[in-house]
């Protein structure tokens, strides 16, 4: 596997515009992006895409981001390696504690600022690669 290629990212947001904005911004930076518009779709794509990082919106109809994160983190093989970034307004102590409880690794505040989002993605990829090596 060539070292230069960037690892895949799964973007999960029921808002198509948001998802598109993130996709375009990160794709220009060379990340292979797959988009899911619901929790179910995200879980379906999870094993095929095998993302290094999941950008996960919390408020979605059906399975919300909390549940998706929990299921992903319990996946027998991929759960250990995937980094989950919650995309949300986690401004309260309780929300962040909740995020820790379900195994999330990081968060980006909404409304998000794209450079911050990219930096957050990058630091999680760095962390994952440091752990893998």
């Amino acid at each position, binding site marked *: 596997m060539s070292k230069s290629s960037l690892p895949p990212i799964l973007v999960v947001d029921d808002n198509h515009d948001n998802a598109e904005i993130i996709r375009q911004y990160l794709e220009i930076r060379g990340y292979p992006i*797959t988009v899911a518009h619901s929790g179910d779709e995200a*879980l379906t*794509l999870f094993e*095929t895409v095998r993302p290094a990082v999941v950008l996960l919106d919390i408020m979605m109809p059906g399975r919300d981001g909390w549940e998706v994160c929990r299921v992903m983190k*319990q996946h027998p093989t991929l759960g250990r390696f995937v980094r989950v970034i919650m995309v949300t307004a986690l401004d309260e*102590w309780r929300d962040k*504690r909740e995020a*820790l409880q379900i195994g*999330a*690794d990081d968060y980006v505040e909404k409304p998000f600022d794209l450079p911050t989002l990219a930096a957050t993605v990058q630091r999680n990829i760095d962390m994952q690669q440091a752990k893998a090596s």
Partner: protein
Amino acid sequence: MSDSLLLTDFDDPALEQAIGTLDGWRVERVASTDLADATSARPEARAVLIGTANPTILRAVTERAHGAGIPVIVACADDTSRRRAVELSVEEWFRCPTDAEEIAQRIRAAVGRGTTAPGAVASDLVERVEYEQMLHDSLTGLPTLPVMIERSRNLFKERGELVVLYLNFVRYSKIEEIYGWEKLDAVLETTAAAVREFLDDTALSTSRVMVSFTNDDDFIFFHVPAAGVEAASESEITEMVARLQRHVGSRIEAQHGDDIAALFDIYVGRAHVYYNPKIRLERLIYRGIREAANASRSIEERERARRVADLRSSLRDRAVYVDYHPIVVTDTREIFGYEALARGVMRSLRSPEVMFDVAAEADLVWELSRLCRTRAIEGIETRLQPNELLFLNVDPHDFSDPAFDENEVKYPDRVVIEITERTAIKDYPKFRERLRLFRERGFRFAVDDAGSGYAGLGSIANLEPDFIKLDISLINAIDTNFIKQNLVATMVKFANDHGAKVVAEGVERAEEFKAVQDLGVHLVQGFFLHRPSHLPKQPAKQKAGR
């Protein structure tokens, strides 16, 4: 059909090896340009593996294969072909080059998954993920109970008997309470591995033994004696349990330290179940499990009574000693003070958590607290250097103890009283009044386990602490979790605004130390720098206080 055909244009020696490891498979190689037609012509193929990066061929082959209900695996040379593969919803893909094992695994997974109608894909796969989670515990890799019952069904019928062992691991919930769920997960993983290791090694392995995990913190063993072999006798089982306990205990101690190992105990209950064709097999087994679980509980009860007796005699003989755990200044690593950890001299009461648990059951908390306090404070004079502080754990209930008098403690200006955030304080105004009196005498306060709950900073501010000791669960693996870093940064800022100092407890690794240092945490305590120890006595002439 035992003969499974894989159609492919992928030319790689690893594929040959992979096919060799799969049962009853053979490969038929086709040129890339012919693969689509070959796929249509061979509807009996079990799978198609596409090696070419040509997008037109990739699309054509995938469409034909899916049209014929054949799953597709793609060998991806780069990210572009991987993306194409994902967009085409192929069943599996892998990155090249890779080893035979992964290729075999992908082929197996693709076939196991099969092709589904596009609309049904989402819900089916999600269900599958959930279904797998129902069958196997993802943490320990052990099967869940229904799976185990299914597997033992025939064996049990044939042999006519089954021994159920119920392993009741006590105080695992305490580990979670103190160290957080990640720690407990890690400990359970160690436990499951140790249990498996032990079984591979034990005499019982000649017969059929299965382990299940109840998803809480108990384990269940099924032992079906092999044909012609007697079921293990009571004494063999007792002996095995003792060895198991030692084995698991030593593994936990080696990997997680003696504090955690001291918390852990296993009580094993057993039940012998005989097959009876008139009674449903599941019910027989479930009754056996219940019987074994009850037996383990009654052993636990007996053990508890024994510990209460141990505690009473320890109190009478004042058999409590204190270990001092250094708290250091983060930047200089100089010793700032010590947290006093009271331990029972008796082995069964070595862990302070266990000792205080037993005291709570026997209504002896005040008495034990008084003894521990006296012992710890003695150390200020005899063991600490004149500039070092003593951090003393005090339960909020101790403030109602008339014997806990702010005027009777020597060196109040060298004592930091730690109050845990976990205990609910009932009468707040009265409590604050008591704190004020202690403060006036020169005592300082620390909030222990800060940030453990959902309450956040409000409850901490209420106590106006001089020190904030962060909950261990926030420190454990903080170097890899950015949410923890954010919470600790918030706490440090809060402390700086309020003239308090933050202590990071449970720092076990260099990476954790670096992370808390970078976040501006003032003081650090943990195995990375020091272990708790029974400090040597200082020369008697030393003057305390300043």
